[in-house]
């Protein structure tokens, strides 16, 4: 390589690293410092040691937000993930007509603004006037569920919203992965006498592993930072029952003006996601699969 080109790749990738340093590394450091202070945004932050962390441990709302975020993430992995895989398998059926049309329709929610999605779901799951209760009433003569004002059902509706919004998006990744699996593998499995279920677990799943890992990790990190769904749909309510960690941080920092406290919650989130990320990298072998 000539000396002229030696620096070229560094120049090409430098914009990312400059922004990464200024807008990610520095904030992480600044957040760690802020988390040790009490600060309302004006004047000088006052150093208070680990007080914010002690307070977080005793704050029931922070506990709820951790629980909820864990619940949303678990639901994403146990419900959204298999749903997307099933939809992709259905769309991958041989000789399926209208495949592109179905795929496009299922993908559409990603295009919509979270505001409109929250509005629609607010209307549909309204306890008194909602479409969903009207359907229940028509089918079963029962429409007594106050979806959005019951702490348990409100969480369920948040999960339904996540399911509706993200499944089609994940489906296109699964489908692309499925389409990359050579048909010969299925044919030889069929000749060997493997039934559809057997073929799915001994051909599809192993072949799909890179995609599965990618989707699982993407979903894990995306759901861990869930904000819009509960913020817009339920405003964290009823009470604080649907608050997520990201929402907790937003509220502490920008509604209650406790920037130090919010920063401490941010540091806690960083630690949790970091540990989860390491665990996920272990389980799914991400990073190793690159080479």
């Amino acid at each position, binding site marked *: 390589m000539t000396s002229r080109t030696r620096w070229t790749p560094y120049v090409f990738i430098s914009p990312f690293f400059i922004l990464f340093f200024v807008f990610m590394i520095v904030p992480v450091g600044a957040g760690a410092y802020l988390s040790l202070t009490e600060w309302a945004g004006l004047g000088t932050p006052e150093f208070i040691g680990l007080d914010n962390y002690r307070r977080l441990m005793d704050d029931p709302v922070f506990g709820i937000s951790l629980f909820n975020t864990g619940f949303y993430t678990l639901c994403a992995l146990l419900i959204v993930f298999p749903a997307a895989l099933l939809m992709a398998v259905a769309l991958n059926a041989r000789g399926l007509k209208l495949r592109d049309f179905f795929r496009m329709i299922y*993908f559409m929610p990603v295009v919509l603004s979270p505001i*409109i999605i929250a509005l629609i779901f607010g209307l*549909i799951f309204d306890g008194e*006037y909602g479409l969903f209760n009207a359907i229940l009433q028509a089918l079963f003569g029962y429409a007594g569920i106050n979806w959005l004002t019951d702490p348990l059902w409100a969480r369920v509706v948040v999960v339904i919203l996540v399911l509706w919004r993200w499944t089609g998006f994940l489906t296109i990744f699964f*489908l692309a992965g499925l389409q990359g699996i050579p048909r010969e593998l299925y044919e030889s499995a069929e000749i060997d006498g493997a039934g559809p279920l057997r073929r799915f677990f001994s051909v599809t799943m192993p072949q799909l592993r890179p995609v599965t890992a990618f989707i699982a990790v993407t979903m894990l990190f995306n759901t861990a930072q869930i904000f819009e769904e509960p913020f817009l749909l339920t405003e964290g309510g009823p009470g604080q029952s649907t608050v997520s960690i990201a929402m907790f941080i937003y509220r502490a920092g920008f509604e209650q003006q406790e920037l130090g406290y919010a920063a401490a919650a941010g540091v806690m989130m960083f630690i949790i996601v970091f540990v989860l990320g390491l665990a996920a990298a272990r389980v799914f072998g991400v990073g190793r699969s690159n080479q």
Partner: protein
Amino acid sequence: MSQSTTQPETRRQRRGRSRQRAIKPGSNPLGRSLLYVVLAGLVVVYVGPMLWAVSSSFKVRGDIFSFPPQLIPDPVTLENYATLLETQPFWRWMIMSSSVALIATIATVFFCSLAGFGFAKYDFKGKNVLFYTMFSSMALPFAVILVPLFVLVSIMGLSHPFIALIVPWVAPAFGIFMMRQYTEQSVPSELLDAARIDGCGEFKIFLSIVFPLLKPAVGALGVWSFLNSYNNLLWPLVIVAEPQFYTMPLGLQTLFAAEGRQYDLVMAGAVLATVPALIVFFLLRKHMVSGLTAGAVKS
């Protein structure tokens, strides 16, 4: 991948056989019809709520919440749209959001393709470490840096919406990763070497040879980046203070959070606001799928 080990001839023969089988609609016509029923049912599940939103936006306020719900508005009214456009700076939100999203998209596509090219087609010291650093940065949740980023951006005097809403986001790791995967697959290195022998500079190689070959990936990244910016709520909520710089989601959210929950106006606004996003999506939807999945499937 393992399919490359198969002989080309036999592959083609087998393909032909599976295609023949595809013409006969499977061995199980009942299962096949069931499949279509399920897929069509899902279409209803997806399209239904969207149509419900459109329908609600044409209802008078009292009819939006009525039991049993009205499927088709009666009476149909344009009142919501008219009142929204009269009383709210809707077009200002629209222009703000669209221009921010457009600038961000152009910058993102440029920086990501450039960096993706750098990672895909050059060997340099520290490449693996740098790539892995870039890749792992995707795992950092935005909420973690929300507070300190707000503080830093304010201190550095970058809180003007046109700077704060664009600059930090123009080189996302996901985009670079995607472009790197795509460049590796679809840009032959011999082409670059030939250009070098002709005395072409590296940046010119990027602009005139590499970039044109990346079209599908550019389309996908473009849609992804436009939608991300156009629909973003949390960051504008934090950083944009002056109402004259409100973006669309921020304007609608403020209207919605205001007293009395103006469902009628917000619904009309949300339906209108979706139009540009849908246009961008429909124009580039073909690229979207192939480009987005290129990276994920192969790595």
